[in-house]
């Protein structure tokens, strides 16, 4: 007998309700029928703006990915006869006769205004040029490997160029350049944020989990970095990129410069999450069972942090896109012959250009759309972070 003063075998606690060993499955509503992933998807779909933004971003990314196909011209295809051409109107109806046709445009003819000495463009109404879909044009490499020369749309007459968003100082098609520029601007956002995630979450996890001297040093470094205003710091770092570097290196350099500050925000967020998650009882339970640190990080911390990281990362993409645009706009970002939205906007840096050639502001519109879409998307993802709230 090793029980001290115990009442022995029969111990039935029936002070509340009836003793019952097998309880029914107990599902009360459909919320309980869904798995965690299903709950998250449901939450996301409920946010219309986020869904719309997501679709818009997918389209924009696809278009830039297949830039050669969607752009009627390549980014460097110049035409000295049509410099600073205004956007051409795509028509369906002949303004004189009122007849309807398949989409067409009238070519522009430049005429020097003898009072202002500006080149002014007028439509040549005699020449109706149909717009052709899947038109053969400039050869390009789809996805950088497959040589092809079919474009989604373009002028049916190779001699008469179509500029739906106008052209620049050397007669290059702005619409095509915007699509190619999107490749740089949008990928800077993605790559910058990938670096941010990698560096930010590793450092954040380490300083949250282990604390101590490492954490102390990291936190002081982050505070120092964050005490500088962001743009001047970016500018200083970007200016340090050697001018003799080839454009691809400069591009990589800019990505690193932009990630250089962004990781601090993510790392703080991750650190805070780890600090709170490691005090959860399920982590204690795993520790008490002898789980290794690697296992705890993999099975408990990462799955519970992933959605937070994705939200923070999503909201960091537009910041990076804006950063690249700002640097390129100021002439210290990516360098020609690369194109980016900020670099294109550089054409509008002089006020007189904005007055004379307002279409040079089009790239800004694309920046705006991308940034807003990312912000809405981030908002929608934030709702998903806590799938259990209703």
């Amino acid at each position, binding site marked *: 007998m090793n029980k001290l003063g115990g009442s022995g075998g029969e111990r039935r606690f029936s002070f509340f309700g009836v003793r019952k060993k097998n*309880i029914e499955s107990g599902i009360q509503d459909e919320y309980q029928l869904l798995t965690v992933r299903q709950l998250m998807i449901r939450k996301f779909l409920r946010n219309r703006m986020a869904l719309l933004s997501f679709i818009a971003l997918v389209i924009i990314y696809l278009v830039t990915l297949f830039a050669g196909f969607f752009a009627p011209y390549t980014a460097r295809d110049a035409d000295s006869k049509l410099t600073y051409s205004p956007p051409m109107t795509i028509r369906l109806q002949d303004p004189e006769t009122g007849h309807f046709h398949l989409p067409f445009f009238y070519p522009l003819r430049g005429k020097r205004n003898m009072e202002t000495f500006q080149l002014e463009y007028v439509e040549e109404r005699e020449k109706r040029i149909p717009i052709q879909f899947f038109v053969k044009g400039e050869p390009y490499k789809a996805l950088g490997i497959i040589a092809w020369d079919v474009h989604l749309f373009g002028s049916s007459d190779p001699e008469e160029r179509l500029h739906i968003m106008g052209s620049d100082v050397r007669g290059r098609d702005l619409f095509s350049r915007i699509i190619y520029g999107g490749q740089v601007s949008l990928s800077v956002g993605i790559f910058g944020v990938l670096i941010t995630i990698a560096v930010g979450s590793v450092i954040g996890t380490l300083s949250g989990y282990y604390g101590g001297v490492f954490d102390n040093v990291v936190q002081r470094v982050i505070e120092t970095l964050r005490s500088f205003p962001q743009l001047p710091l970016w500018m200083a770092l970007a200016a340090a990129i050697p001018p003799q570097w080839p454009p691809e290196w400069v591009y990589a350099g800019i990505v690193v410069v932009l990630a250089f500050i962004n990781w601090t925000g993510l790392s703080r967020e991750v650190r805070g999450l780890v600090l709170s998650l490691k005090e959860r009882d399920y982590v204690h339970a795993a520790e008490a069972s002898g789980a290794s640190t690697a296992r705890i990080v993999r099975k408990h911390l990462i799955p519970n942090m992933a959605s937070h990281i994705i939200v923070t990362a999503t909201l960091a993409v537009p910041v990076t896109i804006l950063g690249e645009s700002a640097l390129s706009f100021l002439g210290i970002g990516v360098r020609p012959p690369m194109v980016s939205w900020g670099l294109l906007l550089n054409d509008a840096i002089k006020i007189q250009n904005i007055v004379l050639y307002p279409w040079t502001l089009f790239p800004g519109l694309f920046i705006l759309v991308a940034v807003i879409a990312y912000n809405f998307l981030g908002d929608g993802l934030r709702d998903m972070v806590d799938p259990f709230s209703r």
Partner: protein
Amino acid sequence: MTPVEAAGPDAILKIRDLRLHFPVKAGLLKKTVGYVKAVDGISFDVYAGETVGLVGESGSGKTTIGRCIVRLYKPTTGSMHFRTGAGLVDIAQLDKRELQPIRRDIQMLFQDPNSSLNARMRVGDIIAEPLEIHAIGTADERRARVEDLLEHVGLGAEMYNRYPHQLSGGQRQRVGVARALSIEPRLVICDEPVSALDVSVQAQVLNLLADLQEELGLTYVFIAHDLSVVEYISDRVMVMYLGKLMETAPTRKIFERPAHPYTEALLNSIPKRVRGGHRKRFVLTGDIPSPVNPPAGCVFHTRCQYAKDICKTETPPLRTLPKDPYTSVACHLVDELSLSPYYTAAERADLEPDRA
């Protein structure tokens, strides 16, 4: 043969002078400015197959003791000898690697199943986790064992693929029980396992724990903050206050003949279920003092209605009563006081005729 002697060789855990002082850090340089004396010199034995209740107000250090035993914390000083196949081993200062085999024998059941189950894991994976960590069996064997356990705790094997949010509170705690038992521990620290549950399911979970104990020959350290829960499940009760033990005694004795003023106060805070005369009731007032600066002398003297001068200066040791070898009390006035019981032996006999 007295039960204590008989139980002697059966002790599976012998704790001696256990202390855990959490450093309090302040200032820019994080200098240690003091210590939270969460557990401050505690000694007790746990015998194989019994249930020891550990009771005290919030902040008295119960959870901290539990976490020391499962070695989530490393005690500041003191020893914790645990009986293994190779005899008694002091687990107080073992490192991670040395602890690994011992962790199979000691598990913890947590208070709140909402926070002790990872919401992103399926129930089956939660229960299988300890088995996976110790690489027990093949994946199929583990699955079979988990399904068996699910049946055992009254859930049914079809719960394997559920997520915690798909279960009710009581069901979640059953998952917690299954996880704690999956690697067949011998000692389970139950840290207030029912206090986060609906009153209506508390009894079900307590019954489950009692059934499993009988079936598997488990030993429980059962933590609770009020004596009423402990009454039903414990063989013995240890009452603690501010990191120290005040009284340890068989459960019945605690309720019929409390020997420490703090025990009396805790009993008085339970709503009385039996009729009984009006008697002078000693109720606790004020808050538990800070464990950073515990009162000198008897730590309870600031709230004890019987306190005398000696209580403020001298710390009463925990002493076994000469007339009652199963009871130990830390009070200067233990021989003088006559404390009011929760119920008298007669009332008790009245209440549960089969037990008398």
